[in-house]
């Protein structure tokens, strides 16, 4: 009964990956890649994207999970609304944000003009603003999911711990530092690492918002690989991914270890 999945794995994972690695064997591909100014910019963008977007997202998720654990009927309703970005497909909402940021006709700049009588910034035609907005889109989309994870983590903490610390006269900050954080630290760190891997594969937030432009200055590794495919340079696309592997595989290994350990502990 394992056979169907083994077939899927061999035909659609193992063979493609092996074939891909074989295509990426020429040293020339890497020379071309490193000579491409777009590549260097892409690596910098990817590092910024990972460090800033993931950490801002988790800081917000940590804060918001503290808000959503308040026991109120209206907060439960708000959490139902809050999950919408995660529940709907990426394309409609990213296109919506893309048009909102249109410098001439977009909602943002027209409100900006009404408030200040000045023209707003040229959001997506400026590489820095464009990448920032791609990170905003990414956070908008992924924040609800990670907030939910951290809410679950917070709800698993025994209430007695908080009651006992209240009796001892602990301030909210002390409660967070000595009760909440030690209990969810592992969850927080594991989630951050998993999110880093997934964020590295986030193609939509950049491609559908800026398309990698202006002038290919807002690409990240995932969109650069696809750009090379569209230019019919598959070897180049594979080389891009091979270059990223040394940074991805340790995280993948860590996550697999973590899950296996979890599995055996049961």
């Amino acid at each position, binding site marked *: 009964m*394992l056979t169907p999945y083994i077939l899927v*794995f061999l035909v659609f994972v193992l063979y493609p990956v092996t074939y891909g690695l074989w295509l990426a064997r020429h040293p020339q591909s890497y020379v071309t890649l490193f000579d491409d100014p777009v590549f260097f910019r892409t690596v910098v963008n990817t590092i910024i994207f990972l460090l800033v977007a993931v950490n801002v997202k988790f800081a917000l998720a940590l804060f918001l999970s503290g808000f959503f654990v308040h026991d109120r009927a209206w907060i439960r309703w708000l959490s139902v609304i809050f999950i919408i970005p995660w529940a709907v497909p*990426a*394309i*409609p909402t990213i296109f*919506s944000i893309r048009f909102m940021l249109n410098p001439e006709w977009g909602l943002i700049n027209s*409100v900006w003009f009404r408030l200040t009588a000045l023209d707003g910034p040229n959001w997506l035609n400026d590489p820095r603003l464009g990448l920032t907005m791609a990170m905003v889109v990414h956070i908008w989309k992924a924040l609800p999911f990670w907030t939910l994870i951290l809410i*679950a983590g917070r709800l698993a903490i025994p209430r007695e711990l908080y009651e006992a610390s209240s009796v001892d006269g602990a301030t909210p900050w002390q409660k967070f530092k000595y009760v909440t954080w030690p209990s969810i630290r592992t969850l927080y760190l594991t989630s951050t690492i998993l999110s880093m891997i997934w964020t590295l*594969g986030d*193609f939509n937030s950049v491609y559908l918002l800026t398309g990698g432009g202006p002038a290919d200055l807002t690409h990240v590794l995932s969109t650069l690989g696809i750009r090379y495919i569209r230019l019919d340079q598959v070897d180049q696309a594979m080389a891009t991914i091979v270059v990223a592997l040394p940074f991805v595989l340790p995280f993948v290994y860590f996550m697999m270890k973590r899950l296996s350990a979890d599995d055996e502990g049961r």
Partner: protein
Amino acid sequence: MNKFVREAKLWLIAIPILLWTLLPIYHIFLFSISTKDSAFSGALWPDKPTLRNFGTVFRQEHFYLHHFWEQIWNSLWIAVATGLLTLAIATCAAFAISRLKVKGGRAVMNAALFTYFIPAAFLAVPMYKAMGTYGLLNNRWSLVLAMVTLASPYAIWVLKQASDKLPWELDEAARIDGATPLQLFRLVYLPLMMPSLVAIGTYALLLAWNEYLYAFLLLSHENTIPLAVGLGHFLASDDSPWELLMATALIYALPPAAIYYAFRRYMVGGLTVGAVKG
């Protein structure tokens, strides 16, 4: 008074959350009920709200919409096929690993997890090349098979976790009564696993319906592309009819959102938390 201040603080957090979450959603809705002129004027509410955009979409009366019904059918076909195929493959695999304890089960589980953790956009490049070798490009099956590949690792893992929790006494009792593994699978395992199976089927279905990257890489012909790729075509020119795009996008986004909320109980609680709990 103290209580009042505390409630006010909560509302002070709630209002930005509400604005942040709903603005892009409202913007889709706003465009879909606006005329072109009104949409491009940056108004917060149209002068004359209209449903004509939806009529234009349903009657396919625009160059970008000539294949609307065909594309929505493709989306549906691909999503349902992915859901069913993933369910079949993952259920069998989870049963073999968790209940039959077949040899090599652990290795297969690790292979699946490895696939799960590799960023999907990275796997897309070799997958595209391989589909070309198999001669499947521009065939809807290529997207179905790619999505099954992406969905089944997580599906197997979740089903294995759920299956591990079922009591062993059931299997023993069934064996004593002389049940074959297949009977055990059909009569004991499947009925008990129903809630997880519903959740996993939904997960795979939504994953396929929402997918953009693999869809536009593997399918490019007007007649084979799902609606997601059709929406992407609107960006081909600068003066695209954004009000029609948003009306189409709204139609595209509603079914998965409705399904997500209908199965929310399973989707959030059962599926995700276990994946990261350390």
